[in-house]
């Protein structure tokens, strides 16, 4: 269901920067800043699922939060439907708030414990003045059925539900205003393994039914491979590789992607001693003082002094690495189901 590249992207992020002040001087001027997102270019095609992977601290959550407007951008643009979301006035933002929705990781802390499911799920409709009374109830009931919850539970509180059911509530709350784009930030990471598959399948089903576009943020490469059409790998605030899922997993072009993939434990004891795992030093660069050249160079086993640690490295042909052409990187092997 991947859209063709020629079509207008649904969301177009250009040179986006998000910086957090760490320290200010006496006059209140920022003297040290952390660069959470530093120059992201990313376009989402209508109807696709774009996976966004990377280690904790790489800026993937900040990127997601900036798209939904929960975090202010320092510079750059996020174009959606002809408008730059970073420049909208508060009044205008409301229109987009219903089109771009977010599903959070932790189903336990993201639901107000004092609201019934009716209130939690119906709240966005009430807040936008879209429905009330029996219409509200009908729409909440319909949405609950769609995500696999019985409307009989409408007047119960979140504590009575398991993690998987709560995540269904979160999804219902996100989808009730009929959005186009859903930012799902680690939506299955906090769930039990036996219910992850249910939620992944549900997300796929809902995508087909409502024509949704997903930005699926996760650190779990197996989950992303299962659900994404394309995958963006983020490192230290930048996209370092972007490709179709099959290509990225089988023929990674960035050494960081290769290392990430090799670190995933494979559930097959016969492959245990196959070797080939690339161990990365866990020293990340200082986010308040990004290094010159490639941010990954310090951990990269292919890094060449004088080439990788100077100047800037651009994202070319979907990969941000000066040596990618000359490297023969190893991807995953396909196995029979």
């Amino acid at each position, binding site marked *: 269901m991947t859209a063709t590249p020629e079509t207008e992207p649904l969301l177009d992020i250009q040179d986006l920067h998000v910086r957090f002040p760490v320290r200010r001087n006496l006059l209140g001027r920022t003297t040290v800043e952390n660069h959470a997102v530093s120059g992201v270019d990313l376009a989402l095609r209508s109807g696709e699922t774009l996976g966004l992977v990377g280690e904790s601290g790489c800026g993937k959550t900040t990127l997601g939060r900036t798209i939904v407007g929960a975090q202010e951008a320092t510079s750059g643009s996020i174009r959606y439907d002809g408008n730059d979301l970073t420049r909208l006035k508060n009044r205008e933002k409301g229109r987009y708030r219903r089109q771009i929705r977010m599903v959070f990781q932790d189903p336990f802390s993201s639901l107000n414990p004092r609201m019934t499911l009716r209130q939690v799920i119906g709240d966005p409709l009430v807040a936008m003045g879209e429905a009330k009374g029996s219409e509200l109830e009908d729409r909440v009931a319909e949405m609950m059925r769609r995500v696999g919850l019985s409307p009989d539970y409408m007047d119960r509180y979140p504590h009575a539900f398991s*993690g998987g059911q709560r995540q269904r509530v979160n999804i219902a709350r996100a989808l009730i205003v009929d959005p186009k784009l859903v930012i799902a930030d680690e939506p299955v990471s906090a769930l039990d393994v036996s219910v992850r598959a249910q939620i992944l399948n549900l997300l796929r089903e809902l995508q087909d039914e409502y024509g949704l576009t997903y930005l699926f943020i996760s650190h779990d490469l197996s989950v992303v491979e*299962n659900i994404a059409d394309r995958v963006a790998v983020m490192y230290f605030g930048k996209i370092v590789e972007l490709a179709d*899922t099959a290509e990225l997993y089988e023929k990674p072009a960035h050494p960081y992607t290769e290392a990430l*993939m090799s*670190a*995933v434990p*494979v559930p097959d*004891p*016969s492959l245990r001693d196959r070797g080939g795992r690339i161990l990365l030093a*866990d020293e990340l660069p200082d986010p308040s003082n990004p290094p010159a050249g490639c941010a990954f160079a310090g951990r990269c086993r292919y890094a060449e002094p004088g080439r990788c640690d100077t100047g800037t490295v651009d994202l070319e042909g979907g990969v941000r690495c000066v040596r990618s052409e000359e490297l023969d990187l190893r991807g995953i092997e396909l196995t029979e189901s």
Partner: protein
Amino acid sequence: MSEPLLEISGLHTSFDTYDGKVGAVDGVELTVEAGKTLCVVGESGCGKSVTARSILRLVEKPGSIDSGTVTWHGGEEPFDVLSLDDKDPRLQKLRGDDIGMIFQEPAASLLPLRSIGAQLIEALRIHTGMDKKAARARAVELLGLVGIPDAERRVDAYPFQLSGGMCQRAMIAIALCAEPALLIADEPTTALDVTTQARILDLIRDLQARNHMAVMFITHDLGVVAEMADEVAVMYLGRVVERASVEEVFADPKHPYTKALLRSVPVLGRDRGRDLPTIPGTVPNPLHRPKGCSFHPRCTEAIAGRCDLDEPPEVVFDGGRTAQCVLYDDQSEGDRA
């Protein structure tokens, strides 16, 4: 089979709640062999962590260990840990000397206001009787051994100054400082990135090979199980439903729960873009344990009139592997003890 180091038999641990008594561990039988790795797999609420804590009698109120035995074979004479007096020196020796333990959240298990060095030195002095100077030298050595770069300087760092992976390594150093015969690791890598996880797993394997240490590794990640285990115990709702060697579990799972779990987890290179087989429903609340086999409401192979009424038999197969399931009741009749 080599000699057992730790034998758990008929363990029952429960928690008193306002809604009634919850049987978190409901008759667990497990054996850890000297120098081997036992992986305990299961979802949240299956009782795997409570089992681990029961071994060291670290179950706090409102929890209580109701019955069963935990036999430690690591001393001169085997003894039952659960029947020791609270002040028995053997219990003190067991905690930290004979058995080291690491937990999922390193940041939550380290004291925030003391440097990691101070915490490690304290453990060394208690367990090995070293003087301050020798303990400090050993602390630096241990931190280097667990892969903390620049240990000389990092020994005085506070937990908040270190990343999650670094804190977890400091925890491992503390757990290993007395060279225990058994390391209990409760989801030690769940909160970490895959790249860090790979290094921690390698580290545990290295140390195990060097010291002939046994490991009880608790996880819900089947990939980690395949990488680490010699033996596997699958837990569901407070019971061990299947126990076998790691090769047997992955090549030929017997219990329907194990089979379903292995199918429903996305695997790199196997499940791209396809709907995943799911396990219906969710893990039941242990307060309302289903009658008969606890798994029968979610089991696709359940036999009406049997699985929902009778407790499943413990079936012992050739070679010693076991499964609690009626499906194998007849064929192994001859093998049963």
